């Protein structure tokens, strides 16, 4: 049995001090409370800041408990995700000229649309927020299944799907080419929350022919737009530190 990891112990001690104090604490206070050198404490605090477990007041430089720790164990609220994703989703629709949808996993077989931005051509379209879609045959679903930490039934399926989901995981995006609705397709990418878990999928959808070229590869700049927007929403949600 290996011994304990010292820096994890120290980080835990710092979190006890920060969480146990009503106001914000400076690095000197924290260093004194845990009995560590100021430089050591500072290094640990920077790491905790990066993972969102503490946050730092921009003006005073003092530390409090961060959003990552407050939310630990409770999934991100979908309405919160929509609110934070909204500007990026709008920009994606405006730039790509396609419908944009954001979805979360609901069980192992379905995903639910939590945000929908119309295709910017002012044609009649109906808001699809709350609509359930099959997880296996949609781009949004494939992204979410590929990154689902739940029982790996879907990922370990004996057919070609396991390979496809492994590919989605490896390359960071999923394609849908008419599997759900003939002629309709989607390019989707993962949205990550604080600490890294995938909390939603963001994608553009439209006719297969306008999303993919003759060889089935995403057209032009579309893929970059989708992965950039998903990365921006992830940052907005606190992924990758403060």
């Amino acid at each position, binding site marked *: 049995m290996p011994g304990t990891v010292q820096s994890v112990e120290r980080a835990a001690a710092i979190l006890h001090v920060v969480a146990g104090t009503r106001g914000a604490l400076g690095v000197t206070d924290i260093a004194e409370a845990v009995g560590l050198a100021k430089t050591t404490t500072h290094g640990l605090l920077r790491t905790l800041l990066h993972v969102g477990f503490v946050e730092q007041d921009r003006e005073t430089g003092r530390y409090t408990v961060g959003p990552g720790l407050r939310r630990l164990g409770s999934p991100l609220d*979908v309405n919160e995700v929509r609110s934070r994703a909204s500007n990026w989703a709008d*920009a994606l629709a405006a730039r790509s000229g396609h419908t944009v949808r954001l979805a979360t996993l609901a069980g192992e077989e379905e995903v639910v649309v939590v*945000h929908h931005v119309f295709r910017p051509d002012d044609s009649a379209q109906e808001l699809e927020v709350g609509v359930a879609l099959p997880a296996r045959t949609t781009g949004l679903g494939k992204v979410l299944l590929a990154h689902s930490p739940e029982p790996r039934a879907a990922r370990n399926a004996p057919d070609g799907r396991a390979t496809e989901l492994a590919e989605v995981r490896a390359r960071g995006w999923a394609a849908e080419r008419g599997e759900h609705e003939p002629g309709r397709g989607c390019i989707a990418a993962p949205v990550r929350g604080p600490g890294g878990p995938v909390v939603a999928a963001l994608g553009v959808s439209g006719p297969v022919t306008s999303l993919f070229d003759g060889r089935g590869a995403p057209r032009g700049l579309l893929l970059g737009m989708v992965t950039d927007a998903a990365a921006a929403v992830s940052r907005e949600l606190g992924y990758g530190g403060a």
Partner: protein
Amino acid sequence: MPDRYVLAVDQGTTSTRSLVFDRGGRMVAVRQREHRQHFPRPGWVEHDPMEIWANTRWTADQVLADVGAAGGVVALGIANQRETTVVWDRATGRPVLRALVWQDTRTAELVSELCARPDAGLVPERSGMAIAGYFSGPRLRWILEHVPRARERAERGELLFGTMETWLIWNLTGGPEGGRHVTDVTNASRTLLMDVRSCRWDPDLLAFFGIPAAMLPEIRPSVGMLGTATALAQPLPITGALGDQQAALFGQACFAPGEAKCTYGTGSFLLQNTGTELVRTRSGSISTVAYQLAGEPVRYALEGSVAVAGALVQWLRDGLGLIGTAPEVETLARTVADNGGCYVVPAFSGLLAPHWRGEARGLVAGLTSYVTKGHLARAVLEATGWQTRDVVRAMAADSGLSLPALRVDGGMTTNNLLMQFIADALDTPVVRPMVGETVSLGAAYAAGLAVGVWSDVEALRRNWHRAAQWTPSPETTRALTAEYPRWERAVQLSIAWGAP
């Protein structure tokens, strides 16, 4: 031809933002800086004009650097928090005191004195608005009364008055060294000092409020040359200025009579274009200037301002601790199917449109042991929907214009439950545009229109794209129409509760 971009400065209540838009109306860069809120006494709210000027210059220079020298930014437009009042020394450029913010209520006593005067009827007659502490005229009067020697110095022309856009334009165009002292007609219309028909300072109104004409800026159209911003890293013509809500109307491309937008932020602000017609109001909406293009007649609007919308959700979060973040209110509200008979009237500091009852105080009506926090969350969201209905009804009575659809923007438009409720409560489609930054977009549109980035308002209209639409459901609309009198009763109770 290289791309041409427009810089917009959105000088808001909590922050100053500089944004660059392309010809498609898409945002390509943004910089933002918050400023401090000063609360020296209960009800007093102040901003430091020097801090806001510094933030304006910093964010504008940064965003110009972001798009690069080759970026081709050709004009600057300004949208500003309305009615916030600054008085400064013409020679030094120093404010005589901090800006009195639109939320500041220190003029309450002064306003009741002014209202009691036998000639008080002059104010709504000429300015189009009732005397209220909400507008800048009473704030200016307060400053002249409370800052030593201010009145005599103002009479000698040593002090200048301005709303935020005036303060910023003066500084951008050189400050003490020849800065242009101008205001746009929408901001001027919010002072109570302007004749709303001729769009000139009115000598009788100036006499009524005791304001020396020497300190007032020149009134200019919202779209047209206002000066050259020589204080920026890259000098730019300032060719657009609008109060923030008028800017949002412009950014939402509401150019035809009847077209309306509502911005759901801390409060909610509904403006409906009434064209070149000034509508006489009797039902509690305000007649205001919508915008003016240089060389064209002034366009008017009806306005319904509601003080508390998103602020009620913030109260649920900060005051009651029922939610962790504002968007979670929808999650909580969806734990129940209806409001459980509960109504919240958020008259935290009185009610604005269409009631105008400063004495009203908030209440929660219909509490039974059945009511849970879910019902309360629902009642909180519905309060914003009901208040929109109050305002729309008053406007319909005043203008006789029908509302084809309500164009919405602001943070609360990501709340699907609320947007659907508003569509049902109004029996009108609610539509959200692709660019949510309607205030800054409106400022950019105004500035770009003046220099030919866009040929006319029809070109701007083509930039507007629908990002979402909520369609009323007939059954829900019927049920809400039947329920509406209960809300009206709760409003009456909140007014009665606050009565002395």
